[in-house]
């Protein structure tokens, strides 16, 4: 490791950690030494093995080989409980909070302070206030979690871990769900924690953030540690190339291919949930042939409802959807697909694939009424297989054959297959929710290429993404969605991720839609 410090000052030392898994890249001979009282970033692509490594450190997985040392003592964790006892706490990427409980109740859940037979909430409240003040977390123990924003929820998660006495915090992709402003706040909190002597392991693949907050950086590629650097020594670009092992693709559109032919038009779309909440409020837009409309927004602001309404999975309370001028508001999902609407769903495991069915059967999915996968009321197995093979070849899906179950493929290859399937049959509209989420850099570049090519051939695209660079780089037009409304339209050629982030949180409400 790149530290010259005497061994005793290491809060955590991982030596020779190896973990083998079926089918996926595991960890191989990982060596990391984390200095006490620092923020140590672990960077690597999706699937490089960062999460597995952290699960090993947190006792959720056991390594096949290698040793873990915490504060100079060899440890052997059998469960997260062991890790917590050793002072290690983990803040997961997806929050694990009960919405209908207060912050206090959430924090004590599982380690309730007892006073005889009852619960000693007063002591707990006092302790939470102390922790909150001393680390500048600014959390009110009596607020309902349901009322908290994403950034606040994350601070509750951190508080939960501190409450259990953690001195070493693992943060797994903590910024993935945050907008830039919230990221800055988080980093402020991390610096305070560090100042109080806590050690932080920060997992990320966002390099600018890593460079701004970390004291040490360890790069993981294909399951192993490839180098350890200090932020002052490298640029984001160099770091990225260490991570990928090669040069990076950039999301960008070359010349505009936007035509004046409207393809998909939404007019006053409003969606109301069963309990009467407006999750989509008077949304209107037009996407022309050859145009990519990007929708930026913090997750949960109506994107999922918008996509499902456009695809006919959800019925709007008001408003119309028109495809090439024709009203399709009442059309079923199947009719819409037949009319040329393609759909890359946000959650490929829930909506994009039949995980335990073969790849060629997955080729049929969404094309149940269209050749080459069917002939009349019958399945055309040969046609479906041939076309599945074509997708595998053209979209570089790494699979031994089209007969294996979809679940056996890696996430990136599953996504490439879905993109290939949805691009089949000359769609006129593509609804793409997070088209490159969780795929590696190579697959990301390939997916962008396919979208660009289809756009040049007059495909209209609605793209939703949490990756602001992707949105800015790939959109012809960019709208911001907030609490179910399109609150502003920005020019992707001039907007910066910072400005977009402000608009997403509602900080820059000035540019109201005309």
């Amino acid at each position, binding site marked *: *490791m790149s530290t010259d410090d005497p061994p005793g000052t290491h809060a955590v030392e991982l030596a020779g950690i190896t973990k083998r898994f079926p089918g996926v890249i595991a960890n*191989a001979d990982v060596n990391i030494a984390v200095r006490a009282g620092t923020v140590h970033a672990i960077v690597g692509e999706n699937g490089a093995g960062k999460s597995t490594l952290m699960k090993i450190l947190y006792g959720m997985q056991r390594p096949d080989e290698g040793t873990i040392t915490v504060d100079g003592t060899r440890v052997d964790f059998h469960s997260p409980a062991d890790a917590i006892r050793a002072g290690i706490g983990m803040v997961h990427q997806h929050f694990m909070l009960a919405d209908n409980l207060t912050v206090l109740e959430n924090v004590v859940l599982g380690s309730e302070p007892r006073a005889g037979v009852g619960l000693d909430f007063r002591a707990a409240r006092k302790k939470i206030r102390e922790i909150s003040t001393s680390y500048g977390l600014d959390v009110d123990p009596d607020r309902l979690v349901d009322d908290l924003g994403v950034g606040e929820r994350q601070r509750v998660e951190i508080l939960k871990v501190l409450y259990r006495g953690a001195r070493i915090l693992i943060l797994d992709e903590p910024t993935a769900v945050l907008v830039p402003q919230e990221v800055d706040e988080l980093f402020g909190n991390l610096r305070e924690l560090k100042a109080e002597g806590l050690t932080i392991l920060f997992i990320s693949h966002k390099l600018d953030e890593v460079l701004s907050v970390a004291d040490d950086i360890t790069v993981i590629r294909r399951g192993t540690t490839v180098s350890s650097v200090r932020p002052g020594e490298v640029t984001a670009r160099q770091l990225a190339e260490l991570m990928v092992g090669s040069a990076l693709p950039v999301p960008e559109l070359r010349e505009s291919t936007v035509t004046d032919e409207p393809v998909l038009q939404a007019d006053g779309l409003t969606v109301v949930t069963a309990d009467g909440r407006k999750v989509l409020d008077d949304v209107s837009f037009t996407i022309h042939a050859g145009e990519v409309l990007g929708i930026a927004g913090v997750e949960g602001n109506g994107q999922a409802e918008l996509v499902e309404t456009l695809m006919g999975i959800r019925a709007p309370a008001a408003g119309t959807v028109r495809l090439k001028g024709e009203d399709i508001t009442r059309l079923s999902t199947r009719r819409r697909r037949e009319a040329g609407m393609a759909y890359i769903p946000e959650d490929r495991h829930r909506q994009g694939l039949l*995980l335990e*069915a073969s790849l060629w059967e997955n080729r049929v999915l*969404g094309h149940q009424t269209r050749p080459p996968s069917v002939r009349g009321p019958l399945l055309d197995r040969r046609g479906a297989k041939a076309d599945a093979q074509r997708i595998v070849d053209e979209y570089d899906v790494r699979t031994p054959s089209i007969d294996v179950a979809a679940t056996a493929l890696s996430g990136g290859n599953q996504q490439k297959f879905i993109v290939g399937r949805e691009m089949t049959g000359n769609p006129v509209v593509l609804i793409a929710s997070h088209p490159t989420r969780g795929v590696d850099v190579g697959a990301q570049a390939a997916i962008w290429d396919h979208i660009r090519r289809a756009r040049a051939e007059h495909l209209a695209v609605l793209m939703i993404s949490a990756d602001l660079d992707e949105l800015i780089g790939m959109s012809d037009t960019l709208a911001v969605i907030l609490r179910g409304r399109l609150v502003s339209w920005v020019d992707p050629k001039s907007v910066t991720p910072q400005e977009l982030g402000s608009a997403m949180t509602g900080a820059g409400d000035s540019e109201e839609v005309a």
Partner: protein
Amino acid sequence: MSRLTPRTVLLGLAAPLGALVFAALVCAVILIATGHSPADTVQAMITSGKRPRTLVNSLNSATNYYLSAVAVAIGFRMNLFNIGVDGQYRMAALLAAGFAGATWIDSVPGPIRIIGTIMVAMIVGAAWAGIAAILKVARGVSEVISTIMLNAIATYLGQYLLLKLAVPVAGSNNIGTRPITEGGQIPGFDWPGSTSKVYGLVILAVLVGVVYWFVLTRTRFGFDIKATGMSESAAVASGVSVKRMVLYSMLLSGGIAGLVGMPQLLGSSHSYSLDFPAGLGFIGIAVALLGRNHPAGMALAALLWGVLDNAANSLDVAGVPKEIVAIMQGVIVLSVVVAYELVRRYRVRYEQQKVGRELGMTRVPAAAGVGA
């Protein structure tokens, strides 16, 4: 799952065979614990099983069980639990018996009568299942609850209707529908050495199995059923109308359930009476589970069930309580469900490993360049 390699075949057989062996062991333990000899029991069952009469009866039972299992399996494929096959076939058999036994129909040509009877049975079965389907589609009522309740309703409604339709059965205190006259009956096949005949409608069961296989694996409709069963959310995103599929598959399931009583009605009893077999719908659930909803698997399972049931009758003679067979059947079903899940998990893992191996990804990544 169209890949037939020795390994997949072996995996497919591992679970049911393992469950059978396990069930046999459990029964042996119970027999020994209650002071009976497992060897004698097996001997008694084999001796009985070799009799032509037992074989014919087993085949006939299996025919009923198979039809019932297919009806259940159509629902299972979509994660629908049609517990109501029992009520559906009893209502169907009763009304079909009333139709086929009516006096006015005696003059109608035989083939038309038979086809008409079968149609009536299917329509009644589908209608009875349709009640549960409509409740589920329109009001979100769980089909498990509604079909169970419909079974109870079928029992009482059946008794009421039987009183309306019935004529006394000569020489007993039984009552039943007017017997179907010869033109409306389906003759059975002779079996050497046995006075009982094999149901003519065994052919119908085979036909139903073939159609079931074809529809599920070769048609668009079957694909939609399979997709809905595997992942409802993915099916919806692909354009499947789940409500419509629920309605159709429940109606189909009920229609097939309507056939369950037909081999018995048209082939041997010729009348629906108080002693018409009940409970076939529940046996169908067990057979469908054991046969993994597979047309051939269910056929084997139905035969096994038929043989066990009919061999059980001879156990009392040998001094062994015949309830041991019910215990065995219960243990088979329980252990087979566990075994299938284990095999399924193993299969997923094995396939992931295989893909990993073939793509060269499980190799230990080169441990080069570790920052020193």
